[in-house]
Structure formats: C-alpha cells, structure tokens
C-alpha cells in the first residue's frame, strides 16, 4: 500500500518536473523523466502485471497532463507494453532493461502517432528525433533508476525501528 503511494507520488513529481522544468529549459531535445520513472518503478517491482498496471496508470496520467494535443491513451498503450516488458525482465538486470525500453519508447510512441495520422511524424524527423531523445534517455536512465531505488520504501529490520524509538525516548 505504502509502496504504491510512493510510486504514485514519484510519477506525479516526474510529470510536473517534465512539463514545468525539463521541457521549458530545453524544449527541443530533452530526456523523458516520466518514462524513465515509470520504467524504473516497473523494473524494480520485478513482476509483469504490476509493471503493466504502473505503466498504464503512468501513461494515462501523462496523456491527461494539460499541455497535450494528442489522442488520449497513446502513452498509456506505450507505457503499458513497456511496463509489462520491464517488469517481466527487470528482476535480474534492471538497468539494462530500463535503458533498452527507454530507447525503444520514442519509436513506439511515434509509430502509434503515425498510425493515427499525426502530421509531424515523418521518417526523416523520426531519424533525428529518435536518435537524440534515445541518447538523452540513455544518459539519464542510470540516474533516475538510482533515485527511484533510493526512494523506494524498504522493509526495514527491527533494529532501525528500535533506534528511532530509542531516540524518541531520549529526546
């Protein structure tokens, strides 16, 4: 329960940071924080179904995030599939899986956009944009994965609880 709450908060923070800071600082080529956070959460969870659920919810929130001009559900579909993959394979090598999915994701999103007839998706645009966004995601993937795993609540041993109560007692 607490784990899910933390995941939701992390995704919310990533959403707001993405449109409020990252895209405003560099509007053209920027890492996709939401994608990376969702993939990291799914990979660290290490199971397919929770990964897909995290991906779907995160993607839906990304679709609903206000400055949006695409069909609702595009990112939900992409992140659901990638969350499933990351959760399925992320148990052993989370970093490798997150990086792989982060590189695949822009192309997958563009493919769905092209299927829906998005006018901006041309092959030449895809070639440059996918390359640069993929590189950006690749660079930021270890950082985000580390941050997410550091913020993930751990089932602490009894000892730490004892120390806090001890401190509380002395204070």
């Amino acid at each position, binding site marked *: 329960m607490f784990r899910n709450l933390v995941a939701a908060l992390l995704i919310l923070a990533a959403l*707001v940071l993405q*449109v409020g800071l990252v895209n405003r600082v560099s509007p053209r080529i920027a890492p996709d924080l939401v994608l990376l956070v969702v993939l990291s959460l799914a990979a660290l969870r290490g199971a397919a179904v929770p990964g897909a659920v995290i991906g779907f919810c995160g993607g839906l929130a990304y679709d*609903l995030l206000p*400055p949006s001009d695409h069909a609702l559900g595009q990112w939900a579909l992409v992140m659901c599939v990638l969350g499933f993959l990351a959760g399925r394979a992320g148990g052993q090598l989370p970093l490798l899986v997150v990086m792989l999915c982060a590189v695949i994701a822009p192309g997958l999103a563009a493919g769905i956009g092209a299927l829906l007839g998005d006018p901006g998706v041309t092959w030449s645009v895809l070639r440059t944009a996918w390359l640069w966004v993929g590189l950006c995601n690749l660079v930021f993937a270890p950082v985000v994965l580390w941050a997410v795993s550091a913020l993930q609540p751990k089932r602490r041993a009894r000892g730490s609880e004892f120390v806090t109560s001890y401190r509380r007692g002395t204070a």
Partner: protein
Amino acid sequence: MRDTRRARLVIGVLLAAALILITVDHRAANGTLLAPVRDVASSVFGSVEGATATVTRPITGFFKTISNAPGAERAITALRKENAQLKSDLDAQRLNRDRVMKLDRMLGLAGLGRYRIVPAQVVARRASPGFEDAVEIDIGTGDGVRTDMTVLSGEGLVGRVVHAGPSTSTVVLLTDPALAAGARMEGGNELGVVNGLGEAGGNDNLIKFRMLDSSSPVQVGRRIVSFGSQGSAPYVPGVPIGVIERVDTTPGELTRTAYARPFADFSSIDVVGVVTEAPKRDPRDSVLPPVPKPAVSRQAKAVERPGLLPAPRPVETRQAETRETDRTVEQPAAAAPGANARPLESEPPRSGHEPREETRLAPSPTPERAAPREPGQAGDQRRQDRGA
C-alpha cells in the same frame, strides 16, 4: 512465471482499455466525449503546475543565464553602442516632439490593430520532438478564454487555444506540425498557409509557408502576417508571423514553399496574450514591427516593381538561383550573378542589389544553419556548426 492466466487477463484488459480510449478520443470531433475527463485533469494538474512554475522560475532563469553567457559580452558592447546612439537620437527627437505629436494625432486613426488581449504566463510546456509542441497558460474560461482563440506575444503570432480549462488553457504553438494558419504576404494579396515543422525546423524553429499561387513572387526578407479566419475564430487578421528566410523553387509544383523565421521566440516563451476580441477592421500590415533598416523596405519595393513588368519571371528565378548558389559559394562570387540581373531591372543597379545583401545577412549570420533542406541534413549541419 506464476499466475499466467490472471496476468494475461489483466494485460489484455489494460491494452483493450488503452485502445478503446484512443479510438473514442480520436473518433469524437474535438474530443467532446472525453472533455469532462480532460477538464478535471486540467484543473487538478493545472493548479499543481501553477504552483511549481513559481518554484522553478528561478531555476529556469538560471539555466537561461548560463546558456546566454557566451553571447553576453558581445551583447554588452553592442548595447553600449546602441545606447550612445539612442541618447543622441533622443536629443534630436526632443526637438521634433511638437511635430511628431501633430503627425501622431493624424496617424492615430491608422494605428495598430485593435486587438483586445488578456495577458497570460506560460506555466508548463510539453515538447515531444516532432509530434507536439504545446504550452499551458495560467488563464482559463474564468478570464474569458475560449477554445480557438488566437495567442500572440509582443513579437508576433504564437499559436491558438485548443483547450480552455477553468483556470488554465492549452495552447498549441505555431511550431507544432499539426497547426496550420492562413497567412498573407506583407503589402500584397498573395495568400498561403503556414505550417509548423516541429523538429525539422531546426534551432531557429523555422515554419513552412506554402504559397497557394506558385507564380506569385516570393523574396527572402519579406514579412508575412496572419490572413484571419472566417469570424476571426482561430486566427484574427493582421498578426505578424515571421520573415521569409529561404525559398524553395520546385518547378512543376502547384504550390510554392518558403521557410520563414517566426517573430516570436519559441525557444524561451514566457508571457503571451490571448486575443479575446478581434479588431473590427482588418489591420492589414499596420501591426508589423517597424522595418529595421530603411534599405529593406526600399529593396522590397524595388523587387516588387519588376513583378509588375511584362517579363518578370527571369529576374525572379535568377534571384532565387543566386541565393541558392551563394549559400555555398563565398561572398565575392555571389555578386556576379546579381550583376547579370541588373540590366533587367528598371531600378538603378545599386538599390536592386546592395540591400539584398543586407536582408540576407541581417536575419541570421549563418543562413545555412537555418535552412532545413532535409530534416535529416539539418541535424548533420547542426552538429558541424557546433564543431566549428
């Protein structure tokens, strides 16, 4: 993997839900069916974004300062020079004030286009390269913003409102490939359509301008303004859009394509205005910024005049070729074809040729970086520029 049947079921349901959402939202015109959902999301996220914008503004400013640092030194010297010149200009103007006041009163009728504007602050931006380029502004239906209103900045057209929430609204920028606006060439009736290029627009956020009449003359350095929609619904007339920077001459095509540099600065967009009331009369070209150098307008007229002459076409194409070649060839060689074109022009040779050099150089010091011949090549050239 354990629990395979349940897993398959859950994933199947989730994928089906996503596909249904896509279908419903894509099918329904203007997203009427899912508008309440978007409304709720926009009010929830909008308030959070508004709050974070106040926090992140110093950070954004810091990054902007760092990225501007190399040019700052040059800018300071240029500004000092300009300041000195402005001071002397101001002294001269003090003498002319009485005369100016009379003239001003006389010209007041013709003044700038009377748009009624609600100012707004950009709180969030989303830019998926190539697919969408949109910003969120901090005013909504409560401030009189409705869907399909024109958005402009102090420099020119910015975009249009696609969704107006209760307290925030979404604006699609002019650089978004999905956006198309009617446009008109300055000082004429040549019409065309402006399209965003997205990622293909390069660092200068170029936009595409397609002339509906392929025989009409297009020159580099001419400005375009919005033509205005019926009932001024998405676009009000007369808003400055940009300066034409490159013309593509493809013989045999029905439309003629030019690339324009927008007046508005899309790399750092901050304060915008939503036009809540269109002007009663089309302001035509009156809202365009004053021509930076008098030579430019003289050149525009000078080139326009041969367009009225019986045999304008050779001059026209020759100029386009000149521009094509001198982008790659060095400066002195570029003067030679221009000299060939001189006898055809009715103007004295200097006014036809000399200012063109200025207009070509004035908008950008390196036109080859701005010209996206092919979006794929643009990326290569950008990399070369950075290396040089």
